[in-house]
């Protein structure tokens, strides 16, 4: 299974259209539109939203995307009515771009938090970068506690890739002809999104398909990869393998 998506819009046609569009890049993701009122008018309906949430939840959770203000209120009301389930989250994201980004992330097996983040960073690389910085700062505080383990005795030689902060780094060169376009970006962001890692690729959050695409990295571009967290080594190894294999395009 994967994280499911619910699209809440004032218009039934708009919700269905967004779901249709996002499904193009996410064939296995359950995308449920909940648009319009019960009688087909413009507006939102608690009953429609709650029934959509039920359909979309395959066990890995649901990310809800909404359009205008009262759709947000209806979605929030639905969660309150259901006793605020932990596995349903609202994304504060633009509907179309957010739905596509979230669908791509969900298709790649990413977890609930990462799918939500994919939606929320879809349109605003600056906001996304700021978010990443904030997260980096939080993680940067934690390594103070981890330092004793990483700060090895003078005689011990850390691996070549481990920086003093415990980060795993790599410098890689894109060799496939088109570089880091949509499909490779989705592959990377999706796989990295399923890991417990903070990973930066040339200043972009490696778990965000849109931020990776926004790098516009073509053939020959050098990628500076820096990862921290429990899955840091695994994450960098994955990026290295994909880049060296040209994302299967060679």
């Amino acid at each position, binding site marked *: 299974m994967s994280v499911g998506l619910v699209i809440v819009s004032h218009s039934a046609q708009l919700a269905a259209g967004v779901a249709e569009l996002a499904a193009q890049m996410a064939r296995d993701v359950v995308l449920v539109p909940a648009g319009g*009122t*019960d009688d087909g*008018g*413009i*507006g*939102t*309906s*608690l*009953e*429609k939203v709650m029934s959509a949430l039920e359909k979309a939840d395959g066990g890995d959770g649901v990310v809800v995307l909404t359009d205008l*203000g*009262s759709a947000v*209120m*209806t979605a*929030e*009301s*639905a969660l*309150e*009515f259901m006793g605020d389930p932990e596995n349903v989250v609202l994304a504060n994201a633009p509907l179309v771009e957010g739905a596509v980004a979230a669908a791509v992330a969900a298709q790649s097996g990413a977890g609930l938090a990462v799918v939500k983040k994919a939606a929320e960073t879809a349109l605003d690389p600056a906001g996304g970068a700021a978010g990443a910085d904030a997260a980096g700062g939080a993680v940067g505080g934690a390594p103070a506690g981890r330092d004793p383990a990483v700060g090895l005795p003078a005689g011990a030689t850390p691996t070549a890739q481990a920086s003093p902060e415990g980060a795993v780094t790599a410098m890689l060169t894109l060799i496939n002809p088109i570089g880091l376009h949509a499909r490779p970006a989705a592959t990377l962001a999706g796989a990295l999104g399923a890991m417990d890692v903070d990973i930066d690729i040339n200043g972009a959050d490696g778990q965000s398909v849109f931020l990776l695409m926004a790098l516009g990295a073509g053939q020959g571009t050098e990628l500076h990869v820096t990862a921290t967290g429990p899955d840091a080594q695994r994450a960098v190894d994955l990026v290295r393998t994909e880049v060296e294999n040209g994302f299967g395009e060679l």
Partner: protein
Amino acid sequence: MTGSGNGSGQVLDAAWAIDWLRRSAAVVSENRVALIELDRAIGDGDHGENLDRGFTAIVAKLDQETPATPGAAFKMAAMTLMSKVGGAAGPLYGTAFLRAGTAVGDATALDASMLVAALTAARDGVVARGKAASGEKTMIDAWTPAVEAAAAEAAADGGPAVVLAAAADAAEAGAIATDPLIARKGRASYLGERAIGHRDPGAASSALILRAAADAAAASAGSAAGGSAPAGSAS
């Protein structure tokens, strides 16, 4: 207790809650066009129609089933309004009734202090859901003075009918006081200063609904408590 003259011994049961909802439906229906006109001036013009649809659906449900407690009646109203209204008023009023229902729990009868708790929870729900504050030309400008007036009456040992009458008076004054405000929330906020001079439709409908609660309580006091309560409510 019943001899205090202000109805402080009165309690309100499920029959009152049902009567409140039915009176709300009637008053919303009567004022449907007026609410549409208010909303047309500063919003999208559907407030009266949406609210009428929601309360009409509540009445249809009440014709089929009779909630056993005030809390059950509030929760039924909440679910129905959220599902049938369509616009922002649905989740806002729905949340108000939902939180009020949670506040009173399974109680079969509400005294003045429980009513204040219910009104406070309802107001807090509207604030949380709408993310608005007082003075932003929203229904909160009716609800907050209503809650404050109700609390003051309850503290002065007023009974439920007196408490709700005070809440309704304050809500009406609060709605009128939205006339000169600039809207900060919802579609009216797009109008800037052009919203000045127009009453907020949500505050206006809130005043109508709280008046319906007071009228239902007055009717309940008149029918249930013999001579003393009507004397109190008439003073």
